[in-house]
């Protein structure tokens, strides 16, 4: 759907740089994330890579404040969001939309309502009550949701329950939900780890489209180096909670990978593959 140029410009202005300063998270004695400093300019598509337990997930979840930092700060456009509470916190979460590995859609709600969940943090006063009681979103919001679904070829599924959709479709619905939040940035935590290669490509294309066309900053956790190289403007590699590489995809050569992780790129890929299968299988069973 076409956007008036002045709106887009106003949005660009509202967005600022995301800065992580000494961000740290401890779980007992282990440091999941260890003094991470990172500056992400608006509009960048950043791939965060690393082996299992490198702290990628915790890093993203801290930005959305699903996990609390043990120390350090998160600044968005110069504003400290590390200690926000109540409505301010909900509005920050609205501004940094999250996409999960297991989609995290409400299975028994229809696709349309799942997408409209992205509008919850926008409701005020009387409207908020109407939405809580009867899911009375406005016609405009409904049309927005349908347009978002249509963009990823899902408009016809709007009135089906989310559980009737395939994994790839569900992840695209989750991206629609993220878009309806009208966020400044999108945090995608292993968005393709539970998908087959073809669906993975569709979902990564969708994320790139969101980045290129809507100009949103995208932070995406990946464990496939090839995917990261293909889609991202910049790659951040993590190991044991620390950032060990930060640069252009071209700079992350096979030698660099071996130097960082001590294993070849093929071994890295195989390990990611095995972990993906292990992670996906029990999660699906639990959902059924």
């Amino acid at each position, binding site marked *: 759907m076409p956007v008036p140029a002045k*709106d887009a410009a106003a949005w660009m202005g509202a967005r600022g740089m995301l800065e992580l300063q000494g961000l740290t998270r401890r779980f007992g004695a282990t440091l999941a994330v260890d003094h991470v400093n990172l500056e992400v300019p608006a509009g960048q598509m950043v791939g965060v890579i690393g082996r299992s337990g490198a702290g990628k997930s915790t890093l993203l979840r801290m930005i959305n404040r699903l996990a609390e930092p043990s120390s350090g700060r998160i600044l968005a456009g110069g504003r400290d969001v590390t200690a926000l509470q109540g409505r301010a916190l909900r509005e920050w979460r609205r501004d940094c939309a999250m996409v999960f590995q297991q989609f995290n859609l409400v299975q028994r709600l229809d696709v349309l309502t799942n997408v409209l969940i*992205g509008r919850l943090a926008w409701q005020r006063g009387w409207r908020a009550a109407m939405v809580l009681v009867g899911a009375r979103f406005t*016609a*405009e919001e409904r049309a927005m949701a349908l347009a*978002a679904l249509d963009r990823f070829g899902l*408009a016809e599924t*709007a009135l089906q329950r989310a559980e009737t959709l395939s994994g790839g479709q569900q992840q695209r619905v989750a991206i629609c939900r993220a*878009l309806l939040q009208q966020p400044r940035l999108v945090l995608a935590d292993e968005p393709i780890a539970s998908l087959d290669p073809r669906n993975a490509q569709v979902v990564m294309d969708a994320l790139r489209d969101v980045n290129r066309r809507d100009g949103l900053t995208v932070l995406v956790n990946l464990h496939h180096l090839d995917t990261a190289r293909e889609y991202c403007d910049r790659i951040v590699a993590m190991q044991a909670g620390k950032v060990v590489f930060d640069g252009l995809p071209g700079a992350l050569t096979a030698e660099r990978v071996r130097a960082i992780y001590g294993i070849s790129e093929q071994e890295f890929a195989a390990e990611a593959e095995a972990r993906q299968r292990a992670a996906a299988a029990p999660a699906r069973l639990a959902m059924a």
Partner: protein
Amino acid sequence: MSAAPMSAADVAAWRARMPGAFGRDGRARALRLLGWAAFLLWLGWALWHFGFTPERLWNGLSGLATILRLMVPPSPGELWVDILQGLAESVAMAFLGTFIAALIAVPLGFLGAGNVVTNTLFRFSLRRVFDGFRGIDQLIWALAFVRAVGLGPLAGVLAIATADVAVLAKLNAEAIENAERRQVEGVTAAGGGFLARLRFGVLPQVLPVMLAQALYFFESNTRSAAILGVVGAGGIGLQISERIRVRHWDEVAFIILLMVATVAAIDWLSARLRRRMIGG
């Protein structure tokens, strides 16, 4: 941008393309409103008909206050041995009744589950029989069994068992229908027959649910066993109704406290049992 504000024309276009996404239309909304209005009207009439006035509620409150005053301090009275006996009888009644009901409800549950018994007519009839039994309250069963087998705890046990067997069978059937198909498929693929599928594919999945329900019913029946005594089906209820008749509210209060303690103890015990047998 896909999530940018929409113009009125865009909204209208989407409304024309997918009307179902925009909620009910004017007529459906008016009908709903009418339905609500009718319901509120009926509610108001019912309250008026039952004499639901603030005045009556206020007077009732003062009556309750009198009873509460008479209850303090609670006292065991002189016949406290009878009280303890009645309580033990009630617990025993509840346990036996629930135990019998739970045992019978296991096979009945399998027979009533759509994924086990594929004969629709048989299952449908069985489910309606369950419904019929459920429609009759424990108290009615108790009155019937007191006439049939005479006063005393046996009537209580039979009343509890008959009333609960249908409810437990229905709950079991639903648990069985919710059992996961893939686990059963694993047993089938390994060459398991019909009964082996039920025993190794379904039963392990539903047994924790069945046990939890039976334990909850045991606890709940200990409470309702007090009522059964009032109509002559044995247990603590008889002791309570006798004391209410002669207005010994302090002794009634003592019995109530004792029952609360008993139910709490059963709750604690069943929670431990559940953890041991189900884990978590």
